[in-house]
């Protein structure tokens, strides 16, 4: 029985890939196990690197949900600037976007038929 997935022009055998991934992970583990496992668990060595600053206590660190995405929002600020501008909160605008984009997709899919 063939476990190869076929999509007409593409093909992939996930089980074979998975078997070899596990095999190479074992080789990786052998390399890993040959390394030096020691470190000093209860010293400053395990503190996070904060450019020499002292880590504040967990209770004093307040991370807002939005902060988790800071890196994405900052990196893609040009994209978000456009998105937030069209994110008006007015349901009529969203329906217009929905209809507009939907009609373009329909035109592309069946327009020439």
């Amino acid at each position, binding site marked *: 029985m063939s476990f*190869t997935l076929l999509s007409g*022009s*593409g*093909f*992939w*055998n996930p089980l*074979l*890939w998975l078997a*070899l*991934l*596990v*095999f*190479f*992970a074992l*080789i*990786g*583990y052998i*390399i*890993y196990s*040959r*390394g*030096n*496992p*020691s*470190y*000093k*668990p209860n010293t400053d*060595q*395990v*503190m*996070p*690197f*904060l*450019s020499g600053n002292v880590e504040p206590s967990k209770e004093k660190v307040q991370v807002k949900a939005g902060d988790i*995405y*800071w*890196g*994405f929002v*900052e*990196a*893609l*600020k*040009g*994209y978000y600037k456009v998105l937030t501008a069209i994110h008006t909160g007015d349901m009529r605008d969203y329906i217009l976007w929905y209809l507009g984009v939907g009609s373009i997709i329909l035109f592309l899919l069946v327009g020439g038929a």
Partner: protein
Amino acid sequence: MTPETIFYSVAFPLLGVFLGLVYKGIDRRISARLTSRIGPPIRQPFWDVGKLLLKETIVPKNAIAWLFNAMPILAFASSLTLLLYIPFGVLKAPLEGYGDLVVILYLLTLQSLAMAIGGFASGSPFSSVGAQREMVLMMSYEMPLATVIVGFALIYRSFSLTTIASTPVWSIVSPLAAFGVLLLFVALLTVTPAELAKLPFDIAEAETEIAEGMLAEYSGRNLALFYLSDAVRGFAMAAIEVVLFFPFTLSSILGLSLTGFALYAVEALWFLLKVLIIYLLAVTLVRTSFGRFKIDQASRIFWVHVNLVALLGLALIWVGV
């Protein structure tokens, strides 16, 4: 599967680790020479791996230990599986018929994803910012990368890398489509340093700014595995570019009538030379010549400029095929 296939499936990726480290050594040496330095010996990456294995492997207090330790192994294993689908000169890919170009696209992503997850699991703000940047970069360069693959699928009506490698693309397309292929090559060359986290797109690691980012908390054997997976991925990426754009064999160029071992030996060396040239062009020369972009600049470059180049290439292929 034949025993021969199983042997190739194990031997090729392991050979890839060795070649990846050799290419890394050549890259460092040539980069040093380009900046008027002597540079390390070519075998330095091997020593680096040995040195890292001797160093302590620190697991930070805030890290999710199992995830933090598992990701380097996953990155290493996934980068090795990448080599299973790439033909090596005149030799077919070890898993020919079991995976295509789309699988390669996903496997390239998997290694970056493992590094990003490892970064998030580190429990360090530097690593977290680095991981976020890596994911933004991935979102930015995936589109042009996918466009290149679609372009080849349009030409060959197949995603099989062996089918693509069997006939050089330049010999089967019209001049207009050939220009489109050239644009796809430019787009892929631009994506390469980002895919390999090299300058000017090493924003996720930016040593001087976020102290190696995702890798800030990694050390010892964990860092050694990331180092090895990086070396393999560098070799694999250059090999993919050779297979897609320059699959010409030396025998066909010089009209040689080699057979047996001589054919495989000559073509293997020819393939390695082509990979080296692409590696030096796309990685060494670029990383030595440019400074680092900011993450928003890099995103804009891929989303706007490189995307436009790739889409224009795709349109020309569509019209010209």
